[in-house]
């Protein structure tokens, strides 16, 4: 715990976080200026809830990207885990079994990815890309294009419920943020993950069990996707084959916008949260401002480039001047 506190007090870290948040504030400020519908308690809670769904997926894949890898299968993982959990819940009536199925499925997929990358030494792009197609195919095959609807109120709580007026997913997001940050900053495992990403050869030479750590990050990525799938299921109240398909690129974008480098060794879970916030704010803003559908992809693309650019410019200015 003291490590964490001293990290926070470390001024360089604080500066980095500050600049990330600055980008978020700029966006919020602009939106508040453009429309009065934005800056209301309801809308802000709304944005936070949407961001937490994206963040749940993105938090796991942050760990993978920290090792200079990538996990393209997270979307398909969410789809398959959600469908499996749905099938189990409707056939057995047990929410607990559904939970276990969702998380278990996510974990197994993570194990699969991990094996491909560590034991079979495949590049992570290809391993997880291949896994993506296979998961899609299998999910479509056993769902047969059908949708499963209607889940228990108690289950739905984690996605659609409120606690003291705040949507539950936001609490889940905060838990993930704290756990994730503690893991990366405060545990040996976390430090080793960074080391593997920064320089796998040096890491191995200094005694880091590289393959075991790689396996760990893919399993964690898969598990968080499995957990995320349960929250999605609870939020949407239905399961179909292509949930999650459209979420892979935004999740990875959130990680990168948050300052994590594809080359590994640099990045934070909090950064990913910022990235998720930025993407969610953009969509929220576009809907509220009624921006024509044709232009929405461009607005998102420009904001992605600008936020990373601004962040880099701020950081460079602060380190030189």
């Amino acid at each position: 715990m003291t490590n964490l506190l001293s990290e926070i007090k470390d001024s360089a870290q604080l500066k980095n976080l500050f600049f990330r948040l600055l980008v978020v504030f700029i966006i919020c400020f602009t939106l508040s200026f453009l429309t009065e519908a934005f800056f209301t308690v309801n809308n802000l809670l709304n944005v936070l809830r949407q961001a937490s769904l994206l963040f749940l997926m993105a938090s796991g894949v942050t760990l993978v990207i920290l090792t200079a890898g990538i996990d393209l299968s997270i979307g398909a993982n969410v789809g398959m885990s959600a469908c499996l959990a749905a099938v189990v819940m409707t056939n057995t009536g047990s929410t607990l079994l559904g939970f276990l199925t969702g998380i278990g499925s996510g974990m197994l997929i993570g194990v699969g990815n991990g094996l491909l990358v560590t034991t079979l030494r495949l590049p992570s792009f290809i391993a997880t890309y291949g896994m993506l197609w296979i998961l899609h195919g299998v999910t479509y095959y056993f769902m047969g294009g059908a949708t499963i609807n209607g889940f228990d109120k108690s289950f739905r709580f984690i996605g659609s419920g409120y606690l003291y007026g705040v949507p539950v997913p936001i609490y889940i997001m905060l838990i993930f943020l704290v756990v994730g940050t503690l893991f990366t900053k405060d545990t040996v495992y976390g430090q080793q993950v960074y080391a593997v990403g920064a320089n796998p050869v040096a890491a191995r030479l200094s005694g880091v069990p590289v393959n075991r750590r790689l396996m760990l990050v893919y399993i964690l990525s898969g598990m968080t996707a499995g957990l995320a799938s349960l929250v999605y299921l609870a939020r949407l109240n239905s399961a179909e084959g292509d949930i999650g398909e459209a979420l892979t690129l935004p999740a990875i974008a959130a990680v990168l916008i948050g300052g994590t480098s594809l080359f590994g060794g640099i990045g934070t879970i909090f950064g990913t949260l910022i990235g998720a916030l930025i993407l969610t704010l953009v969509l929220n803003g576009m809907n509220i401002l009624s921006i024509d559908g044709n232009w929405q992809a461009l607005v998102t693309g420009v904001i992605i480039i600008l936020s990373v650019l601004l962040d880099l410019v701020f950081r460079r200015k602060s380190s030189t001047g």
Partner: protein
Amino acid sequence: MNNVTLKSPRVQLGILFNCIPGVALMLFVCMISFAILSPDFLSLGNLKNVGVQSTILLMISLPMTLVIMTEGIDMSIGALLTFCGVVVAYVLANTHSLPLAIFVALMTGLIIGAMNGAIIVYFSMPPFVVTLGMLGICQSLALVLTDGQSITDVGETIGLSYNGIFLGIPIPIYIGILCYFVTYTLLYHTRFGTYVNAIGGNREALKLAGVKTNFYHVAVYAFSGLMAGLASILLTARMSAGHPTAAIGMEFDAIAAVIVGGTSFEKGNGWLFGTFLGVITVGVLRNGLNLVGVPSSVQVASIGLLVLVALLLDSFKSKT
């Protein structure tokens, strides 16, 4: 005494196996399997089809090889290809001048590719992020230019670039081969190519040696954009229309073909011919699965398996 060891046929086969890259083995296995499963597979007409269908993907996979060799990635190439295709159709529909349409498409591709490169190099930004952003920009531009519809008034001449036949061979195959040799020359016979090959190790050393690294680095993305512009002519010819979502998502196919072909993000080594084999293998697989009539969900899974198995074969070899 002579140390002559007679190698058994199995060992000889093993040595041969070791020398052939995974993608080539997969191609061989696919072709044999489909030849057995479908009487039409080996027909000349069908093989020509596979070649022609693969041309557009080949044309964007070749520059993608170079991009990946410089430790970068171009996520925007599918959307750029789509946008250029729309531009071709737009110019044709409004001016009926094919040369002008070709020129504008090439320029559009080149400029947007160069913009990618410039932002990546001069602002030191991650290629994935910049090209992802550019993907959205190109997607929107395509939708805005067409207002969501196809533009079909493209005339008859452009169709020749995709459907025309010269000396019994379809024109796209000539174009594909030409593009391959141009890329090959660029990569292995120019200073630019030397840079691209070397970057997988040490960008700093190159800078110190006085190489115009920034310029070459931008040029890699500009080349990518230029090829997208060229490929867009074939894309529009194929559909006799410009459509705003035609090639969205093709960048993943290109990246997969490049990596399956043996080029590696981490090691920076690239094999252009491997990319060519990767593209053909994907084309053969899709064609074969259609001929056999495999259900769509199995097709989707097969593509994943292909990608994994090809690289697995490579990784097995490096262990034995």
